């Protein structure tokens, strides 16, 4: 069973760590010495103290040294969803591909359902769709297009 260390023990332990670190002992050797005196501690905490005592600078990108499977998933904003909307204008096919969140896509679709894009093929974010639409033209009523 673990013994709870007193304040004096903790101070003594810190002193020992600094002493051995100055003598350039490795973390494993320091841990052994501490355990011999009944002052052992968690390796993670010991390593932090040893680094502090030895004056080792922190690595600039610590996440690079974590194995990929243990890395926390990075948030890269809203996942892109591509919706292709196609039809024809005067018999010529036009297509627009939209990316964005569900709400953004719905808002964009309100316009895209009525007006075709200016160019034959457009790929854009759902939020910028108004820049690419030809508001003077309407889609053909019955398009003859292929996917």
């Amino acid at each position, binding site marked *: 069973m673990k013994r709870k260390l007193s304040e004096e023990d903790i101070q003594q332990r810190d002193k020992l760590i600094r002493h051995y670190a100055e003598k350039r002992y490795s973390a494993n050797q320091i841990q052994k010495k501490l355990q011999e005196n009944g002052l052992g501690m968690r390796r993670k905490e010991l390593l932090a103290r040893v680094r502090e005592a030895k004056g080792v600078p922190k690595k600039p990108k610590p996440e690079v040294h974590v194995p990929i499977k243990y890395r926390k998933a990075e948030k890269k904003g809203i996942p892109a969803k591509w919706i292709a*909307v196609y039809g024809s204008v005067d018999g010529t096919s036009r297509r627009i591909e939209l990316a964005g969140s569900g709400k953004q896509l*719905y808002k964009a679709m309100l316009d895209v359902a009525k007006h075709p894009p200016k160019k034959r*093929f457009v790929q854009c974010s759902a939020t910028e769709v108004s820049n690419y639409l030809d508001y003077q033209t309407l889609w053909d*009523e019955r*398009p003859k297009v292929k*996917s």
Partner: protein
Amino acid sequence: MAIVVGLSDNKTVMCDLDDISFKKAKDLAFLTMEHFKLEGFIILKSSNKHYHVVFDKPKRWSEVISIIAWIGIIAKNENVWKWVCMQAIKKFCTLRVGPKPDGEGLKPSPKVVYTYGSQNRQIKWFLSMRRRVLRMVKRLNVG
């Protein structure tokens, strides 16, 4: 109805099989899945003798285009070749999700008719997006 709505992706292996029987579409899907270790697939019926196949394992675009070109060669079907060429030009694979005008009538949105193997990755994405898009199309009354 003025527009057709589809789903586009360049990491999902999907294929539009036109003028092909269900048995041939199924055999082709099995063959492709085993040859490229794609783990699972679904077949959607677009209309009579027209099927869509979506595979579960994500691939890079260069692999996707190589796989669908392989399907085109194995299928020996001109419509599939045309479809593959169109996707290669766009650099995206697109499959129709909403309804589409056909002559005087209307082709309904494709329905899932067969599933096999793993369904947790690209198929899950495809089906959830399909549901959302169909809901959107219904609300906007464009399909």
